[in-house]
């Protein structure tokens, strides 16, 4: 199904093209609300800057990997993502029951859904990342090289092995990683995306 992008999709494109002129609009128009929310809830301006940046990088990755099409206004989508990320961060820091000031933004189903997709994407990314680091050093290196270089022939040449051996090694390492992910507790909580 092809979705009709919202006119705010320009912000997604700006992330993909690193267009600082349009990106500065994001900071100008949408971040003041987020900053004030975080500051009201035990955070600092630096916290806000981090949360905002990490959220934007996640959206960038989702756009790059999953061709994210924004079908709702960016404002509400972005605010909700940052807000929930901040609440998670507070939980991680073990901040004792701070009064969470609820904001009064109402959100539509379509926004809720878009937010959820991004969150699931991020959880999956984090899970894959954690599991990747559990692989042996050799596997990590081999996989990094194959994904960066893309051509298996070149990888084989670089590593001084045959093409068939390189492929076999790659699939073995990927197999190990598959098993790690499959057995991770978090994987079962993660809905399929």
């Amino acid at each position, binding site marked *: 199904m092809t979705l009709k*992008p919202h*006119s*705010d*999709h*320009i912000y997604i494109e700006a*992330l993909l093209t*690193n267009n*600082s*002129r*349009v*990106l*500065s*609009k*994001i*900071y*100008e*128009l*949408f*971040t*003041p609300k987020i*900053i004030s929310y975080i500051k009201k809830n035990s955070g600092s*301006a*630096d916290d*806000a*800057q981090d949360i*905002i*940046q990490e959220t*934007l*990088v996640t959206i*960038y*990755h989702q756009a*790059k*990997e999953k061709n994210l099409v924004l079908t709702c206004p960016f*404002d509400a989508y972005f605010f909700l993502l940052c807000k929930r990320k901040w609440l998670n961060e507070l939980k991680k820091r073990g901040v004792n029951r701070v009064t969470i000031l609820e904001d009064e933004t109402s959100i539509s189903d379509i926004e809720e859904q878009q937010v959820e997709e991004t969150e699931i994407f991020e959880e*999956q*990314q984090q899970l*894959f990342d954690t599991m*990747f680091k559990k692989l042996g050093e050799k596997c990590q290196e081999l*996989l*990094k090289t194959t*994904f*960066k270089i*893309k051509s*298996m022939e070149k990888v084989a040449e670089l590593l001084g092995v045959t093409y068939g051996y390189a*492929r*076999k090694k*790659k*699939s*073995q390492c*990927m*197999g190990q*990683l*598959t*098993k790690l*992910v*499959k057995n991770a507790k978090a*994987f079962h909580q993660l809905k*399929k995306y």
Partner: protein
Amino acid sequence: MNDSNYIEFENYISNELSSEEKKHFEEKLNTNANLKEEFEIYKALNTSLSSKFSNEGEEQNLRKTLTKLGNKHITKKGKVIELKTYKNLMIAASIAIIVGLFVFNNNTPSYNDYANHNALELVVRGENNEAFSRAEEAFNSKNYEEALKELTFLSNIYLTDTEIQLYKGICLLELGNYYEAEAIFDKISTGTSSLSSTAVWYKALSLLKQKKYIACKQLLKIIPQSAPEYNKAQDLLDKL
């Protein structure tokens, strides 16, 4: 699951199976739930890692841009005027307006010496492109009445866009609607937008145009050194 399964996954994904082998593999997937689950994970990992590692450099560049913007807009170092200071100064300025009425001034700089507006260049938003270019064309050719019409239309769509607001204010100022113009400048300058010092500058110009020199001076003094309008403001201050 053993190594040969994973080699088969790899061959399937990289399209190295014959059509016969492919069909056979797909049948296995449909009948073996465990195999299917692992294959789905394998495939998702392949896409995810491939995207992650091949875009590492691009991600770093994006992070650089975002850090710069964040430093400028969020952890700003005294760039934007504090709301409270601004309000106090506004009170001082309005007292000065009353006083200013009785002050006789000659040989003073005029509004036209300073009214060199930056060309309007709005970011294209994908929609309403024609309205954007009509607004730009009208404004840049000093047809402020027409520009005001287009900008008013656009400001009703992009409610939070400060740049559109600011230029709407400039059109109103040019057309002599000081009251409405200043209301817009006030709103922008008390907000957190990076255009807030520009809005203060324009409010000062509006006062200059109405020959409210003392109030104008008060406002010029609060434009911070880091603002792009600082030099112009100092220059005007010297002459007043």
